[in-house]
């Protein structure tokens, strides 16, 4: 399993990277950590004529806070998110999710921009982007744009990125105080892509859920927000009937596929179980709505 031949170009800046990508058109692919791209190349599932290495673009792994957001450079490694004190403080759900991403050796190399662009339906980081309403900064030659996470993922391994575009930064809007979180996934083997997963945040207020977010992954072409379930739980005190109705709603809303490891029915079942657990954790961490 050896990769096909390609031409290698190392870019030192966003401008250079986007210029090179534009120059080579759809024959070119950017490469950063390579943890998703290289396996596909080794299987010869993809054969880019040119790889534009963007790894050396500075700053490689900036994580900072500004204007009500935590901003994360696209070349930040999963491992840096896992360990960043700022992320642990502002988005503990994100730090927790990172510990479920494959294995240390992969997290050491894999970048968050790469994970978003690869857009595996079962990957944790895209689900986090969707859960946390991330804003994804995209650069192309002579321009840039911001894509909301909800519009970024268009299908399995398919995003809103156009040829020649790269992700440069991800902004996560800060969560309100008193927000609890939960993250659950189920994989057959530790570190594997999950058969299904769910993440939730609940912002409590006087015994009620003022805001509820639920993201599901591995149960469709893209990570999704369970909008109907969120609406059913907002304003409730997480009474069992309310939670059960929300679980039913999200099961009805997802559209998983059958594959080798799990049927659509089982995935739908798991989505409900895992969302229920994630919501329970989030509600408890939100102080049961007490804040």
């Amino acid at each position, binding site marked *: 399993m050896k990769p096909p031949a390609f*031409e290698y170009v190392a870019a030192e800046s966003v401008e250079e990277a986007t210029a090179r990508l534009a120059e080579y058109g759809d024959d070119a692919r950017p490469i950063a950590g390579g943890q998703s791209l*290289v*396996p596909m190349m080794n299987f010869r599932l993809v054969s880019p004529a040119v790889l534009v290495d963007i790894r050396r673009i500075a700053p490689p792994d900036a994580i900072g806070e500004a204007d009500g957001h935590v901003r994360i450079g696209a070349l930040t490694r999963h491992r840096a998110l896992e360990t960043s004190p700022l992320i642990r403080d502002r988005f503990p759900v994100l730090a927790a999710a990172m510990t479920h991403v494959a*294995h240390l*050796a992969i997290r*050491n190399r894999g970048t968050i921009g790469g994970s978003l662009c690869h857009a595996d339906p079962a990957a944790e980081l895209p689900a986090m982007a969707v859960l946390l309403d991330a804003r994804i900064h995209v650069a192309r030659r002579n321009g840039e744009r911001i894509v909301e996470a909800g519009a970024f993922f268009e299908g399995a391994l398919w995003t809103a990125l156009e040829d020649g575009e790269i992700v440069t930064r991800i902004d996560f809007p800060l969560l309100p105080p008193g927000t609890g979180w939960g993250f659950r996934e189920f994989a057959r083997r530790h570190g594997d892509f999950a058969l299904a997963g769910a993440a939730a945040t609940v912002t409590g207020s006087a015994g009620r859920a003022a805001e509820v977010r639920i993201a599901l992954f591995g149960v469709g072409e893209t990570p999704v927000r369970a909008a109907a379930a969120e609406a059913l739980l907002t304003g409730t005190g997480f009474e069992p009937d309310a939670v059960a109705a929300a679980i039913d709603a999200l099961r009805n809303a997802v559209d998983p596929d059958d594959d080798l490891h799990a049927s659509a029915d089982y995935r739908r079942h798991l989505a409900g179980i895992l969302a229920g657990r994630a919501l329970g954790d989030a509600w408890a961490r939100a102080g049961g709505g007490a804040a």
Partner: protein
Amino acid sequence: MERTSIALTVNGVRHERKVEPRRLLSDFLREDLGLTGTHVGCEHGVCGACTVLLDGDSARSCLTFAVQCDGASVRTVEGLGEIGALHPLQESFRRHHALQCGFCTPGMLMTALDLLAKYPLATDEEIRAGLSGNLCRCTGYANIVAAVREAAAARGDDRP
């Protein structure tokens, strides 16, 4: 295909080579530098046999192009101890019979080194989770876990 010049340090020794861009770091180490201690088991990042330390962090050499390692520092199993002067982690593996066929062992050692540097490894559950990206078909893992457990305890105050 055009070759690209790279310079990198492997186990403290600087190497300059011209490589085809598609050359995997695993093949570069094994074929070009003759460092065959790094093994190749799947070439898709699952088995972990090819794990090396790249600028101090564990990495799959089968998922890394050598050309991306220009300027990098690589440590392979050959850079640990030697026969007659084993690294303490290698000693622990030997004492606990943590290897049988030995094929996964170099990757297991390099992964364990990185885990020992970065995680408390306070419980077997944590050790097992940390090692879960390295497949072994011979040992059933218990003795590998024991070897890493002992190495974790021996870190003393260096514990992360």
